[in-house]
């Protein structure tokens, strides 16, 4: 399953990539069900309804939807990180992990769920913008490495800073 999360105009995106449609192999996550409500830090997706967010706004299944063999993130670079919507996809998907702690490579992380096949995603991130500063690149690079570490020890992929999504993202 290829999962694509983006913050672009959904119609423009589909016109630019006409071969990409939601199917058994592809899932495109965009803000098409109205404004996505923010995570409220209730931990319901951990201790009440594990893997399901309790906010019923059409985005409550992010813990299962934001997962796949290959994850593509396409985000405007905002102050050295993801844009509001893309970050909210991360926030609303914390139920995909567990609340429990473990020490990995000397640092605290959340314990992942059982991963019998020991499979981890390819996590490719494309940050777009016309004037991304060096500090923003530094902060985003650190964030990307931290995200990968949190997604699991075998997570691979690359981070790219780009100007033109429609010319530079290989979808």
């Amino acid at each position, binding site marked *: 399953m290829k999962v694509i999360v983006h913050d672009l105009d959904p119609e423009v995106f589909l016109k630019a990539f006409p071969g990409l449609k939601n199917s058994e192999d592809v899932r495109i996550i965009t803000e098409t069900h109205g404004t996505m409500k*923010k*995570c*409220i*830090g*209730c*931990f319901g997706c*951990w*201790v*009440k309804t*594990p*893997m399901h967010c309790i906010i019923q706004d059409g985005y409550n299944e992010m813990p*299962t939807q934001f997962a796949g063999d290959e994850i593509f993130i396409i985000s405007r670079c*905002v*102050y*050295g*990180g*993801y*844009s*509001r*919507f893309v*970050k*909210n996809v*991360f*926030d609303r998907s*914390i139920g995909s992990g*567990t*609340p*429990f*702690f*473990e*020490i990995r490579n000397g*640092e*605290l*992380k959340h314990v992942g*769920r*059982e991963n019998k096949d020991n499979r981890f995603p390819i996590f490719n991130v494309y940050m777009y913008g016309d004037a991304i*500063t060096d*500090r*923003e690149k*530094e*902060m*985003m690079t*650190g*964030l990307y490495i*931290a*995200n990968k570490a*949190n997604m699991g020890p075998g997570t691979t992929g690359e981070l790219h800073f780009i100007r033109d999504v429609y010319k530079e993202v290989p979808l």
Partner: protein
Amino acid sequence: MKFAMIMGSPKPKGSMSSRLIEEMTTAIGNSGKVLIFNAAKPERFNEVLSCDRLVFVYPLYFDSLPSHVIAYLEQLDAFIKAHPPEKNPSVYAVCNLGFYEGYQTRWSLGRIQCWAEAVGFPWKVGIGLGAGPFLPHLPPVARIKTDKGREQFLMLLLSDAGGDNIYTEPEITKEMFVEMGNANWIPSLEANGLTVDDVMHPKK
């Protein structure tokens, strides 16, 4: 001297961020007036910008800022560019996280610094508080570094000074912290009729 405390926790009450704001407000005392704002309500920007110092106080969400704080920063940025303020307040940030290592907040503090640079306000310093939500439950002997870090941060805030970001962690072993943190979830699970196995192997 006016301080704007901008609350970045989405919780309406009982958050560690609101507790930190209360404690900083008490510590500021007669040294200035504290105005409290909520990032979930992007309004009263004129009041925010009437302050001499802006302090963003938030929890770490997935290695970074909670999404609504990003929205708030962008709206405040647009307001500043449309209505250039008379003064450029100094920018500070306080981030707490459930993990042990305060330094895991560094990319989020860096985003506030990037925001300050984008709007042309002077960035001063941030503090990342490891074991944040657990701090009120730790004995004083396990909070020595944290308390020192917070005192140092407050001193910098009161004197409009800056420096390298400050990162704190509790004086207990990581192993003990993991044990304590994990045990902390059991009562919540039991209250909802769940077991650890339900969390580890949920029904999809």
